[in-house]
Structure formats: C-alpha cells, structure tokens
C-alpha cells in the first residue's frame, strides 16, 4: 500500500505547512504585515528543539523549548522592528524582514556552526505502527499529523470561543473600534505575533527528526507556506488548513508517482529529463489554477 503511505506523508507535510501558514495568515490578516522572517522562526524552533532535547534528554521538553524560543524571538522582532512597520507599505515590510532573514541565518551559523544537525525521534515514537494489515507506518509521522489536528482544534476554539479570539476577529476587521473601546491593540498585536512565532517554532521542532536542521531550511518552507496562503486565502485559518493539506498531498504524490506516470507517456530519456522539474512544479500549477478560478483564494478571510 505504497499509495496510502505516500498519502499519509502528504498529510503530514500538509500539517507542517498548516502550522506555518496559520501563524502567518493570522499575522497578515490582523496586522496587514507581510513577514518573510516567519521561516527564520521555524529555523529557530528546529535548532532550539534539537539543542534542548540533547541537553534535557527529552523530546517533549525540547519541543516545548523550541516553541518558547521561537515565540521569544518573535516578540523581540515585533518589539524592535515590526512595530514600526505596521503603517508602512508592504515593500518596506518585505525589505526589513529580508534584512532580518539575513541576520538570523548568519547568526545561526555563528552560534550553531555551519554543519547540519540531526535529531532522532524519541524512543516512544521511533517504532512503526500497523495502520492496515501489512502496512507499517512510522509512528513519528503519525504524531506530527495528530499534533497538527490538535493545534487546528485549539486554534478553532481560541478564535471562536475565547475573549482573545474575539479581539483577534475584531482587530482584523475593525481596528479603530477595538482601540476606541479601550483595548490595547499593540499588546494584542504582540500576542498574535508571539502566537504565530510559537506555531512556526513548533513546526520547526516537529520537522527536526524528519529533516536536516540547517541554515536556509526556513526559506524553503516559507515559500511553500506562501503558496498555501495564496491558495487558502489570506487571513483564513480554515483556508490555511485546507490549502496546507492540498499542497502537502499534491507535492508528495506528484514527487512519488509523477516520474513513473511520465515514463508511461513519454520516451524514457525525456521522461527522466523532465520528471524532476515537472513534479516540483505541480503545486505551482495548482496555485495558478486556483488563481484563475478564485483570485482571492479558496476561503474568505476572517471566516474562521
């Protein structure tokens, strides 16, 4: 059941993308801020998770440490730079966060060294699980999927059933009114930014045992996250979940099966030459199709 396995891998990638996109889309929806440095927070999460795990001997503590470290970095970035950029145009925001990426990448290289780190999944997740008879699947990947579901439920509850969520929704649509009612909007912004950063850190920490932890890992996922947000619709957490799963599944399945599919249709030589290119382009083609049908993305903003 190779297909089922790849499908689950796609769902797992989708959940990681959802964690990234949920934070980024909230930050954009509420503060109208484009934050390229979101990928750097993911990287911070991964590095700190690895370091704390090695120091404490527990992956759970490591993951918590990675989340907290990313959230702290997020607050720091918000206070030092972002706060002054809310009223600027997007171009300034892009450039400032581009500067932050360069700084974060180089600082990470200086602190942790240029070589990649590797992290093993904890013992209790290093086994495989029989999802169907004769179909083993790594427990760790299932853990990532379950974490994604838990975060999705948590965000849903947070946004629709709590006072903070109410302020987030109100701040997105009626910023002046929220301020006029006496709420501290800049504190709200900091909290949302920290929340988004924490989610990015969680995504990075969860990615640790799956990927090499290296400088530049943040930018790879950042661009996928952008694709997710474009498809899902800016500002919509639900859109981030649906589009995250869509992009994760399309990307994984096209990489797994498109080369074989191409070989049945084209002569072997040209199929080999094109397979790599075409399968990595699949998600962008999906994005283009969505843009043609619904330029604003699948879901309306704030309709969480």
């Amino acid at each position: 059941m190779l297909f089922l396995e790849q499908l689950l891998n796609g769902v797992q990638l989708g959940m990681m993308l959802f964690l990234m996109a949920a934070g980024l889309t909230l930050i954009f929806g509420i503060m109208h801020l484009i934050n390229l440095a979101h990928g750097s927070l993911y990287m911070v999460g991964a590095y700190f998770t690895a370091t704390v795990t090695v120091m404490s001997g527990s992956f759970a503590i490591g993951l918590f440490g990675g989340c907290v470290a990313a959230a702290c970095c997020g607050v720091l970035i918000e206070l030092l730079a972002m706060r002054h950029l809310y009223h600027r145009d997007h171009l300034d925001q892009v450039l400032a966060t581009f500067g932050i990426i360069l700084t974060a990448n180089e600082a990470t290289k200086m602190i942790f060294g240029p070589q990649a780190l590797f992290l093993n999944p904890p013992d209790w997740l290093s086994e495989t699980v029989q999802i169907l008879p004769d179909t083993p699947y790594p427990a760790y990947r299932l853990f990532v999927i379950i974490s994604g579901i838990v975060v999705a439920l948590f965000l849903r509850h947070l946004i629709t059933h709590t006072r903070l969520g109410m302020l987030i929704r109100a701040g997105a649509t009626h910023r002046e009114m929220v301020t006029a009612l006496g709420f501290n909007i800049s504190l709200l912004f900091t909290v949302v930014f920290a929340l988004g950063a924490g989610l990015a850190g969680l995504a990075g920490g969860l990615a640790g045992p799956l990927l090499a932890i290296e400088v530049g890992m943040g930018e790879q996922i950042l661009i996928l996250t952008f694709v997710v947000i474009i498809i899902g619709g800016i500002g919509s957490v639900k859109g981030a979940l649906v589009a995250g799963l869509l992009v994760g599944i399309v990307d994984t399945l096209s990489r797994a099966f498109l080369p074989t599919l191409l070989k049945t249709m084209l002569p072997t030589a040209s199929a080999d030459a094109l397979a790599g290119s075409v399968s990595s382009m699949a998600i962008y083609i999906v994005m283009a199709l969505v843009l043609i049908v619904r330029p604003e993305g699948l879901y309306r903003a704030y309709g969480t």
Partner: protein
Amino acid sequence: MEPSLSRGTLVRFAIFAVLVVLPWIAHAMDDPFWITIATRMLIYGLAAMSLDLILGYGAMVSFGHAAFFGLGAYVVGVLTHHNFYDEVIPFLPIEWVGSMSAFVQWPLAMLVSGFIALLIGVLSLRTQGVYFIMITLAFAQMLYFFMIGLPDYGGEDGLNLWQRSEIPGLDLSDSSQFYYVVLVLVSLWFLLSRRVVESRFGRVLTGCRYNEPRMRTLGYPVVRYKLLAFTISAMGTGLAGALMANQNEFVSPSLMAWSTSGELMVMVILGGMGTLIGPLVGAFLLLSFEEVLAGLTEHWMVILGPLLVFSVLFARGGLYRFLVGQRDDE
C-alpha cells in the same frame, strides 16, 4: 524646481563620467580587477533599473525578478552550449544549433524573459498588494526548481560557458571592451526607460500608483498597462541576465534564487525608488558594502542584515535623492 533639476543633471553627468574613465583608472592603478567588479555592478544596476520601472512607477512589488535574470542568463547558456557542441536544441520545432552572436543571444534572452513575464503577469496581475508579492515569488521559485530539475543543462551545478558572446569587431573576453559594451547598453536602457516613464504610458502607470480606481474610472485598461510595464521590466532584467552569463561565463539556478530578487529590491530602495538612476547607485552601494564587509569578516551578513533593517526604518528616499537634493515625495 530649476536648481534641483540642474543639480540632478550634474549628478547624472558625474556618475556617467566616472563610469567612462573607470577602466583607465583601474589600468593606471594596475588593478584591473576593479573593472570586473564595476561590470558586475553595472549589470546588477541594469536589472535593478528595470525593476524600478514597475516598483517605483507602477507600485508593483515583484519579488520574482531573479527569475527573469536567470532566464536571460540561461538563454545565453543554452545557445552557447549547443553551439559549442554543435548539437541541435531538442525542444525547438526547428533544427537549430544555437548561436554565439550577441545580436541573436541577447535579444532572444529579452524576448524569452518578456514572454514568460507575460504569462506570469497575466496570472499575477489578477491580484494586488501582498498577494502579488507572494505570487511573483512563488512563480520565480517554480522556475528555479524547474532549472534545478533539468540535468541536461547542469541541474543544480549549473552550466559552464566556454566562451563569451560574439560581436563582430570586438573581443568581449577583454574585460575593458566588455565593460564598455555593458556601459553602452545600460546607458541606452536608461534613456529608453526615461522615455517610457515620461511618455503617456508612463504617466498612466504613475497614475495607477497613486490612485488605481480613479485611473480605471477614467477608462484606462489598467491591467493591460501594468502587464506591459511588467513585461518591459522583465525584458531589461533578462538582458542583464544575458550579460551576467557572459560576465561569469557560467550560469546556474542560483542566479534565480529568491535572495537575488531580494537583493535587486534592496538596490532599488537603497538608491532611490522611482528615479531610474538611483537603482544603479543602489547596486554600487550594496555590492561595495558586500565587498568591503566580506573583507572584514566571514560573517558579514550579520552586519549587513541589521544595516538593511535600519535603512528601511530610518533612511527613506534613497541615496540618489539625497545626492540631488530631492525630497521623497517629488
């Protein structure tokens, strides 16, 4: 504003004069390496100037211009590669072994970049603002991965060119001669861009930047204007890419990396958006920064990054406006 106008002319003339005599100075100082650096700066300046056409005049924040830079370079790379090995280019309907002539390679680089920009533009211009930034970035990244996935043209490792393009009567492998060719092209592109900006077309574009709904209400087909500007801008960037391929005698997907797009934007902003000559100044500024900082420490990016953030937060308008004594809103 008569005084600042003449000061602007003076500054432009001074910049041009320095660029013209630079190879002599470099030879006199027995340091011809400066010519190579200056050529690189001019080429990046050309790309940044083209980006300024849409960034500064059309308010289209394209984060994907590295794609056109890379495409231009790859056109030169592929043509040279096939011509050198005398192989037919496989994906064309006609049997053609490429060409070494700059008069074939460079215009073709511009056409290919322009054509791809047309396709990307049609899709991207359905959206605005932050969507546009992310979509142009995503499409550029798509092309980047496309080139990485093509083993026939070196994939991730890139493609070596065994010689530069050919112009009858000139020897482009001579760094001074190549420098002057680049300088002439940059000057021509500047004059052309200025004509575009000052034409009715350019005015409509600037109008869209200030108030797009109003321009639309006045009956202008706004999207078509923006699409044309996007295409012209990509063609200039493609030409810069073609020159870059010649300068490096090597093309690789890293020319198309997202960070190159970022650098081009930084050049436009540092030099002064919406001034055309500013981005050229910005290219000189950024590349000299990189050169100097890289001489100081291996971790120069940790200095450059915060400098960038500071310049965005505090220094607005760009260096060129400062030089000519123009305020930001002019």
